[in-house]
């Protein structure tokens, strides 16, 4: 039987696995060594559905460090790994507006 993950996930470009850190909710990315990092450049980037499922399955098995892991698109440039859509850009960079008291 196909797992629900396999049924939903269809990877057509570079992706990472992202989640929120348990203790403070900060945005984190899964790295190749199985740790979580706030640095998108240090995230494991995969480009195929089986590789994404493997990365996500390992991330979801970590019940303690991060919450609500999912696969998110990224853009690769020669120098950088960039978030792949507006939602992920906002998660990575923070709100697009000045926070009260900061303006």
């Amino acid at each position, binding site marked *: 039987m196909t797992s629900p993950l396999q049924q939903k996930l269809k990877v057509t470009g570079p992706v990472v696995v992202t989640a929120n850190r348990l203790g*403070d*909710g900060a945005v984190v990315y899964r790295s190749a060594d199985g740790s979580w990092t706030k640095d998108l450049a240090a995230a494991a980037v995969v480009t195929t559905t089986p590789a994404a499922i493997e990365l996500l399955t390992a991330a979801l098995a970590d019940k303690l460090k991060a919450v609500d892991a999912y696969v998110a698109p990224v853009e690769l440039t020669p120098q950088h790994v960039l978030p792949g859509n*507006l939602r992920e850009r906002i998660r990575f960079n923070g709100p697009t507006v000045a926070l009260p008291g900061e303006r």
Partner: protein
Amino acid sequence: MYIYDDFDRTLVDERVREFRDQVARRLSGELTEEEFKPLRLMNGVYLQLHAYMLRIAIPYGTLSSDQLRMLAHVARRYDRNYGHFTTRQNIQFNWIKLEELPDATADLARVGLHGMQTSGNCVRNITTDQWAGVAPDEIEDPRIWAELLRQHLTLHPEFSFLPRKFKIALTASAHDRAAVKIHDIGLRMHRNGAGEAGFEVMVGGGLGRTPFLGKTIKPFLPKRDLLSYVEAIMRTYNQYGRRDNIYKARIKILVHELGAERFAREVEEEWRSIKDGALALDPAVVDDIAARFRYPDYEALADDPPELAQARADNRFRVWLDNSVSNHKLPGYAIVTLSLKPEGAPPGDATAQQMDAIADVAERYSFGEIRVGHEQNLALPHVAQRDLPALWRALDEIGVATPNVNLISDIIACPGLDYCSLANARSIPVAEEITRRFKDLDLARNLGRLHINISGCINACGHHHIGHIGILGVEKNGEEYYQVTIGGRADEGAELGKILGPAVPYGEIADVVEDIAAAYLELRERPDEIFIDTVARVGVDPFKERVYAAR
């Protein structure tokens, strides 16, 4: 203010201890996220895009200065120095850490504040008129009835796992400032032919992806029957509401599918079996709750004191007075609205410094009491008119005296995609840009009463359907687009807005609002025909032509 008793304090303190233990067990790994999530939601803790969010209830929108100072303390110590007042008389902190939540909730409990039932499929914070107890057109203080319902429905074992969340609002004034028709249950106090006060009961209102206005199922409910009748509605919903499909689980869908008449019959049948039982209200119980709402020791004052007449010579003061100050039920006093909508800032946000300053000002000029309205502004309910000039200077200094209350820049907006994990598009920068376009207060005043509501997704936390101009953010091929409605209204004449035309991209939405405003100025019959009345008279088409002619 309402004086909470030992029972209330014990309840909140016990919950703090329980939640502290639950958080510790989650952080140690003893609880999984699946086990912990419903527990944190029961305490108002969400996980958003960047961080946890804590939502705290402000029952019937009434805060003391001590409570507001505590909110400032939480903002400063556990968050990023600000809080966000919502459209349901709650405040949200957007950057709170799970590790620190137990301490934050313990601090809040010291002043009787908590996040219980601000999330989850239970009865949420019961909201009412932010002018309750001081509005000149009020039959009686609706907070008495909100508090009665709060006591009955807090941790009510039968209603802690409803098919979906459940929102109740009350008004006791002819002019509805609580948007009761868009609530699961809306209660409007009025008098019957015999002069007795009771409630019109409306059910099945709500916005979201399937918006409905509440339907009246009981034109007049005697006060003694309030608890039993609400109980009967909730039992009917609990029994027949759909649990198989989250999009069809709200009571509005049940009322729509059954029809209001059949739903009312089901409620009546349930009600018959309980109306004369333990839930029939003993007037002594109501009197006891009423006695716990303490009113200030007002002085006997006259309207229009000389201090006010002198201060009117200052144009800036006069503009603020005309815009933000409203009549009080007593002569010599006034209700003052504090605009949390300065130009170019997120609607409803207040910094810790502002909260502290407002708490001080309230202590000095409003008997230590502050109100929170669904429009995401604050109010001081008991201000002596002679103090208005000094109060204005104090409020102006801290940036909450923008004279734009009920004007086009007094925008209601959800947090949108800048914070919310459900959102498809941003709300706050759209609101900020519109306030910049209409920063000329002469223009805003010329446009008159005009409510803009913005939601970043179909869940409609910004109540876009009932905005005079409603803006809904959607996503199209990875880009933010905005669908515009006009003609909605939230008051006693509540209406859902009508779609103007195709959605427009992010970069054009403020232009569209300017086009609508310009069309209104041309279409209105006279300067005092407000926007919503012009739309009702001429319909959507003239606005549509104006907006889409050049697009």
